[in-house]
C-alpha cells in the first residue's frame, strides 16, 4: 500500500484479514498461499468447490463407466459439445443473477433463437448464415428488452415475469415450429451447413495449435503488461509467481483440450480437430468477462446487484442497467440456442426449456455465482457448465434412466446453493 505506513488510529484490523482476497495483500507466493488457506477456512472458497466437484465427477464416472470410456477422447469431445449449451446458458443467466434477479424463461428463449436462425437458413428464405444468426440473436434481445422493461420499469418481480415468459415462449416456440413440429439444419446448402458445423465442423489440427499459441501469447502479454504497469506506478501487483502460474494453467488447459480434440475419434472415417463451438464459447467468455470486469457497465451491474440503493444514489441509472442485464441474458441464451440447434441437428417441440433453465442456474451457482446478487464471474459458468455437462454425460454413459439423472442433478444443485448460502452467512458474520 502506498499510503503512510504507521497507523495512527486504533481499529480492529484482525477481524477483517481472513476475508480479504489473497492477491490484494500477498506479495509472495508463500504469503498468497497462507491468506488463501485462511480465506477458505473462513467460508469463502472461491473456485475451490467447483474444481473439487469437477475432479470428483471425473474420477467417479471414469471408474464407473464401462471400459472407463468417460475419459476417452471421443467422449470428452462429446462432453465439451454437450457442456457448451449449459455453459453459454449459464453465461447469460450470470447477468441476471448478478443483478439479484432470475430468468426462468431462458430455456425457451434460447430455443426461439435457435429456431429463428434455423428457419432463416432453410432453402426457401436461404438467408446468409451470419444474418440468420444475427436475426436469431436480435429476436432474443427483443424478448429480453420486453421482460427486462417489465421488471425494471414496472417493478414486477423477475420471478413472475419470466415464469409468465416461460409459458409464453414455450407456446410461441410451438407456434413457430408449426404443424411440422421441427426444423432441421442437416441439409446440404452452405448456410445450413454453416450452422450444423458449429458443433460438427472441426478446425484443422495445425491451425488449432497455432491458434492456441497466439491465444496464450496474447493472454500472457496482457497479464504481464498490467502487472508491470501497476508496479511502475507504485501500486500493489500480484506476485510474479502467481501471474506465471495463471498463464501456465491456461496454456496447459489449452494444450490438453487441443490434444484431445486432435486425436482421431472416428470409427470408420477419421474425425479429427477442435469443434468450432469451443473457440466460440471462449470468445463469448472473453467478451462478457471484459464487459463485466473492465467496463463501466459491468461495474454498474455489480453495484446494482450488491446494493441497488447505493447504486441509485451514486447516479447510476439502475433501470437501464437492469433492463440491459435481461437483454444480454436473453441474447446470450440465443447463442446457446443456436449451439443447441447445431448439436441436435435442428429444433423440435421436444426441447425441454424447463430443464435448460435449471441446468443454467445450476451451472452458474455451482461455478460460484451467488443467487443473491452482486457476486460471480463469467468464468463460473464455464466451470459449472462443465460439471453439469459431465454429470449429464456420465449418467448417460452409465445407462441410468432419466429419473436418476433428474434426481442427481437436483441434488448437485442443492449442494451448490448450500455452499452459496453458507459462504454468504460467513461473510455476513465477518
Amino acid at each position, binding site marked *: 500500500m*502506498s499510503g*503512510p505506513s504507521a497507523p495512527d*488510529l486504533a481499529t480492529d484490523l484482525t477481524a*477483517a484479514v481472513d476475508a*480479504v482476497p489473497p492477491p490484494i495483500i500477498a506479495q509472495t507466493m508463500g504469503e498468497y498461499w497462507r491468506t488463501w488457506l485462511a480465506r477458505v477456512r473462513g467460508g469463502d472458497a472461491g473456485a475451490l468447490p467447483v474444481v473439487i466437484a469437477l475432479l470428483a465427477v471425473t474420477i467417479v464416472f471414469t471408474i464407473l463407466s464401462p471400459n472407463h470410456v468417460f475419459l476417452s477422447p471421443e467422449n470428452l469431445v462429446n462432453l465439451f459439445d454437450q457442456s457448451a449449451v449449459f455453459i453459454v446458458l449459464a453465461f447469460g443467466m450470470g447477468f441476471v443473477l448478478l443483478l439479484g434477479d432470475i430468468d426462468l424463461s431462458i430455456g425457451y428463449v434460447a430455443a426461439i433463437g435457435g429456431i429463428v436462425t434455423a428457419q432463416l437458413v432453410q432453402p426457401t428464405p436461404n438467408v446468409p448464415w451470419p444474418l440468420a444468426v444475427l436475426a436469431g440473436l436480435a429476436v432474443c434481445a427483443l424478448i429480453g428488452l420486453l421482460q427486462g422493461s417489465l421488471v425494471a420499469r414496472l417493478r414486477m418481480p423477475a420471478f413472475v415475469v419470466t415464469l409468465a415468459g416461460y409459458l409464453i415462449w414455450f407456446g410461441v416456440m410451438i407456434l413457430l415450429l408449426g404443424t411440422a413440429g421441427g426444423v432441421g439444419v442437416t441439409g446440404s446448402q452452405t448456410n445450413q451447413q454453416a450452422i450444423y458445423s458449429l458443433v460438427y465442423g472441426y478446425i484443422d489440427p495445425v491451425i488449432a495449435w497455432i491458434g492456441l499459441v497466439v491465444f496464450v501469447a496474447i493472454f500472457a502479454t496482457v497479464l504481464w503488461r498490467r502487472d508491470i504497469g501497476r508496479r511502475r506506478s507504485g*501500486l500493489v501487483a500480484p506476485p510474479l509467481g502467481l501471474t506465471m502460474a495463471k498463464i501456465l494453467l491456461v496454456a496447459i488447459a489449452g494444450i490438453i483440450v487441443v490434444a484431445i480434440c486432435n486425436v482421431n475419434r472416428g470409427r470408420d472415417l477419421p474425425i479429427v480437430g477442435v469443434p468450432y463451438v469451443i473457440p466460440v464459447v471462449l470468445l463469448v467468455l472473453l467478451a462478457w468477462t471484459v464487459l463485466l470486469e473492465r467496463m463501466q457497465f459491468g461495474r454498474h451491474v455489480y*453495484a446494482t*446487484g450488491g446494493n441497488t440503493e447505493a447504486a441509485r444514489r451514486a447516479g447510476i441509472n439502475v433501470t437501464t442497467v437492469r433492463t440491459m442485464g435481461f437483454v444480454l441474458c436473453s441474447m446470450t441464451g440465443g447463442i446457446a440456442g443456436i449451439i443447441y440447434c447445431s448439436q441436435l441437428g435442428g429444433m423440435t417441440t421436444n426441447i425441454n426449456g424447463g430443464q435448460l433453465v435449471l441446468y443454467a442456474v445450476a451451472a452458474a451457482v455451482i461455478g460460484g455465482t451467488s443467487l443473491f446478487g452482486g*457476486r460471480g464471474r463469467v468464468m463460473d459458468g464455464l466451470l459449472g457448465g462443465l460439471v453439469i455437462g459431465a454429470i449429464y454425460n456420465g449418467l448417460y454413459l452409465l445407462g441410468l434412466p432419466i429419473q436418476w439423472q433428474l434426481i442427481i442433478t437436483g441434488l448437485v444443485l442443492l449442494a451448490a446453493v448450500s455452499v452459496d448460502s453458507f459462504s454468504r452467512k460467513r461473510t455476513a458474520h*465477518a
Partner: protein
Amino acid sequence: MESMTGPMGVPARTAPGRAPGTAPLDEEPLLRLRGISKRFGAVQALYGVDLDLPRAKVTALCGDNGAGKSVLTKTIAGIHEPDHGQISWEGRPVTIRTPNDASALGIETVYQDLALADNLDIVQNMFLGRERMSGIFLNEDSMERAAAQTLAELRVTTVRSIRQPVATLSGGQRQAVAVAKAVMWNSKLVMLDEPTAALGVAQTRMVLDLIKRLKDHGLAVMVISHNLNDVFEVADRVAVLRLGRMVAQADISTLDRESVVDYMTTGVSSRVVPGPTSQRPEA
C-alpha cells in the same frame, strides 16, 4: 479542498423579522438558509427554519425524533424542495431541486446506511457512478492512486488494502470510506447523518478524528447526532430543531449539555452559560 477564503468581515445579514436565536457570524457562511418551510400533506415538517453553515466549522444539528432533522438535511441535499424560503450558497441565492444540483454545488451527504456496495472494493465504491475511464475501459490504476491519496490525506491508514471488499471492513472503516467518498469530489459541505450511531468506542474515536480533519481541510461539516458526547467533542456550533422550528443556533461555548437537552425537549433554556456570544431562545 476549500480553504478559508470567504469574504472576511462581511456583516451577517439577517432577514427582517426572522432568525430568532441565530448567533451573528463574522462572515458570510458557505450555506445560508432563511425561512425554509416544508409541508408533507397535513404535516408541517419545517416552519421557517434559518440555518448557517460556515466554512471550516463543524455544526451539529440536534433534535429529538421527528424534530425535522432528516427533512432539513434532505432539503439541503436536494431530495426535498422547500415550499418557502431562500437558500444562498457562497453569498449567491441558489435553488437545489435534485441531488445532482447539490453535488454540482459541492454538497455531499453521508447517510446513516452509508450507501456502500458491500461486494465492491474501496476504490470501486469511492468512484461508483463517476468512474475514470481510459477509452471504453475503466482506468483502475488512476482511480486506485486517487483513492489512496484521498484516504492518506484523511489519514485513514488502517485499511489493509484499498482493494479489499467493503464487506470485510469494520464499522468505523466503512464510515471512513463513505466520508472519503463524499469529500473526494471537491465538496465544500459534507453532511453526516448519525455517523457514530452504530460504532464502538475506538471506532467512534476514529470517526470523530476524521470529522475534525475535514474541518481542518476547510470544509463545512454538518453532523446530525443524538449523541451529546460526540456533539460536544467535535462541534463548533450547535443548531437545535424542535417540532420543525429552529429553537437555538449558537457557538458551542455558549451551551452545555443541559441547555441543549432543554432546547431539544422544551424549546427554551433558562440556563446561562458564560461565553463570548449569547444565544437568544425563540421569542
